[in-house]
């Protein structure tokens, strides 16, 4: 199958073939506000500046001015080794180091197998010393909410399918820290398995692309080795924006390609105050009774 065949086939499914007649320019001319700006000086601007993106809810709020100063200085130092390409993996590690506030993460995970997409949304809050974690996970059909406290050790769980019951238990085998996707990325950095692959863009915003180099051999599908996973990192805050991995699924019997895509819609650290600490508690569920388990 030649490249020409592929391009031709894509052209055949073009939903708007050819150029589309635009609206008359007269209405647009009435909206022109003042003369054009003078040309940018000093360097050629390849892209125009646009208003700050309203779509992105991501923000990194550090708990205190001191922490902000330290983090900013660290990011700057890590970003400019020798004044050249930033050490993006190190800056990502620094930007995701938990502070003293309440970490809030909002992720959307897509698992694509055989043309079918399964989407899972997660809202995650955590706080350390003492450790508290709250998680809301939904796949569109079911929603689960859980809240863990370690002092005293207690786990509360609620599900949309059984809304009248809150299950309370004393869990065993609690890990020292939660294993979120970001924690996994941090571990990969510590093991030296994250390298810079180049510049990128994410939803039109400047970003960096990191490539994961796992120590195991990547699996194959249809006789072809799958590419390494990648991580898109914000060029401004260095927090992760998207993780992509091609993998193998055998859920339908025959091994087939499975694409995992995790989008970090929000990654922020909120101040540790009464209002934000309340986010770590199980939501109020009217009429639900608490059932003790185990």
């Amino acid at each position, binding site marked *: *199958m030649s*490249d020409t*065949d*592929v*391009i031709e*086939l*894509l*052209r*055949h*499914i*073009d*939903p*708007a*073939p*050819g*150029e*589309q*007649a*635009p*609206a008359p*320019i007269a*209405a*647009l*001319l009435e*909206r*022109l506000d003042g*003369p*054009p*700006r*003078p*040309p*940018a000086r000093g360097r050629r601007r*390849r*892209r*125009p500046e*646009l208003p700050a*993106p309203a*779509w992105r809810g991501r923000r990194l709020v550090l708990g205190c001015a001191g922490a902000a100063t330290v983090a900013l200085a660290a990011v700057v130092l890590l970003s400019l080794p020798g004044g050249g390409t930033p050490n993006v993996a190190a800056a990502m590690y620094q930007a995701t180091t938990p502070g003293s506030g309440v970490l809030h993460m909002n992720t*959307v995970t897509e698992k*694509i197998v*055989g*043309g079918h997409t399964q989407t899972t949304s997660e809202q995650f809050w955590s706080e350390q010393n003492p450790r508290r974690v709250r998680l809301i996970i939904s796949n569109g059909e079911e929603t689960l909410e859980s809240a863990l406290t370690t002092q005293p050790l207690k786990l509360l769980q609620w599900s949309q399918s059984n809304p009248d019951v809150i299950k309370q238990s004393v869990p065993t085998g609690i890990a020292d820290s939660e294993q979120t996707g970001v924690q996994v990325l941090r571990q990969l950095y510590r093991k030296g398995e994250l390298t810079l692959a*180049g*510049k*990128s*863009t994410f*939803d*039109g915003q*400047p970003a960096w692309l990191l490539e994961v180099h796992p120590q195991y051999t990547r699996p194959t599908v*249809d006789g*072809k080795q799958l*590419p390494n996973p990648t991580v898109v990192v914000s060029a401004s805050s260095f927090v992760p924006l*998207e993780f*992509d991995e091609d993998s193998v699924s055998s859920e*339908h019997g025959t091994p*087939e390609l499975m*694409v995992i*895509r995790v*989008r970090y*819609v929000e990654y922020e650290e909120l101040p540790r105050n009464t209002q934000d600490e309340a986010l770590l508690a199980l939501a109020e569920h009217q009429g639900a009774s608490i059932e003790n388990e185990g």
Partner: protein
Amino acid sequence: MSDRQQFEALYAAHAGAVRAYAMRRGPVTDADDVVAEVFLTAWRRLHDVPVDVDSRAWLLAVARRVQANARRGSSRQQALRARLEHERPAESADPLLERRVIECLLGMRERDREAILLIAWEGLTNREAARVLGVRESTFAVRVHRAKRRLARVLTDAGASHARDATNLLEVQ
């Protein structure tokens, strides 16, 4: 040539391409708004717009940002799905094959998909398309290669498994 004349010439030359770009990636009803936003930006930055063949790439880069600001990744994919599944004008000679291609496109990473669509639909050269995406040509070439390889695999599979039913065909992607 005055600023106004230059702007009108720019609009006459490229507004159709910008509108087509917007229609391919979002609701038809939004296309004129995207065109207006792109050219208002072009007017404000008229002296930064390349006067050579790169002007179209410059305008499409603005259109890409305008649409990105308006929608997030998931809704963009949904919009593309809607455009491909329900609003394509041409009758298909091989609907099953096209179905597979569409699913393959939608299953790609957004950056790979956009790379190959800029070539196939917008008819840009690698250099122009790389400018739209703000990446080096070498980076762009890798993305296109990855997308083509994935699509070619779908087409090859389609030829080998013509007798299977639609469900099975979709599952091998």
